[in-house]
């Protein structure tokens, strides 16, 4: 079946502009996660959605970052007034239930470059 998809695959923007990144999870997966991977580094957790529960936003680095999810489907990560330090690959993952026994399946990522 289809895996996690993300769009765009690449995004180049100017400093100060807003960007929106999209994630389509695997159909039926109730849990969705956003991570950020800076060049040469591991992944940093950003935000976690589980069903209709309030999202865990504890990883968002500043109030310029926000994310929404429509039901148990598409999610968008929005970065306002982008800065050069926002340049990274943004990875989305989904899992069936968000439980301790789940495995997270990752999308291909969106590479964001802020000039």
């Amino acid at each position, binding site marked *: 079946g289809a895996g996690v998809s993300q769009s765009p695959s690449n995004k180049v923007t100017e400093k100060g502009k807003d960007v929106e990144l999209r994630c389509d999870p695997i159909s039926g997966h109730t849990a969705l996660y956003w991570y950020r991977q800076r060049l040469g580094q*591991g992944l940093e957790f950003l935000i976690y959605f589980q069903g209709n529960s309030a999202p865990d936003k504890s990883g968002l680095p500043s109030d310029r970052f926000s994310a929404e999810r429509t039901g148990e489907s598409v999610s968008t990560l929005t970065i306002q007034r982008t800065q050069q330090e926002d340049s990274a690959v943004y990875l989305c993952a989904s899992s069936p239930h968000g439980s301790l026994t789940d*495995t997270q399946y990752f999308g*291909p990522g969106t590479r964001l470059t802020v000039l």
Partner: protein
Amino acid sequence: ELKVEQNPLFLSMQEGKNYTIYCNYSTTSDRLYWYRQDPGKSLESLFVLLSNGAVKQEGRLMASLDTKARLSTLHITAAVHDLSATYFCAVQVWYGGATNKLIFGTGTLLAVQP
């Protein structure tokens, strides 16, 4: 704050040789993942280790978990060029329904030379 440390960060090895990547973490967790990432690609799940003493093997890779030592190892046997990639370990943290997230190590870049 939970920390996950991997070493080495970079590993250059010859084909046919054996080596081990180490993953240490700073808090209790009963679930540890190993992922592989090829350049420009997303993460591919390799192993999920669920309990103390768990050992899993796939081809030339074998992963183990010691929850008491808070240590996981990824052992490479008779390396081949196709294994060249970055390998991440990740520890799952769970706060009773509030959060289910992975804390990743820094990654080990493996380069297998012919």
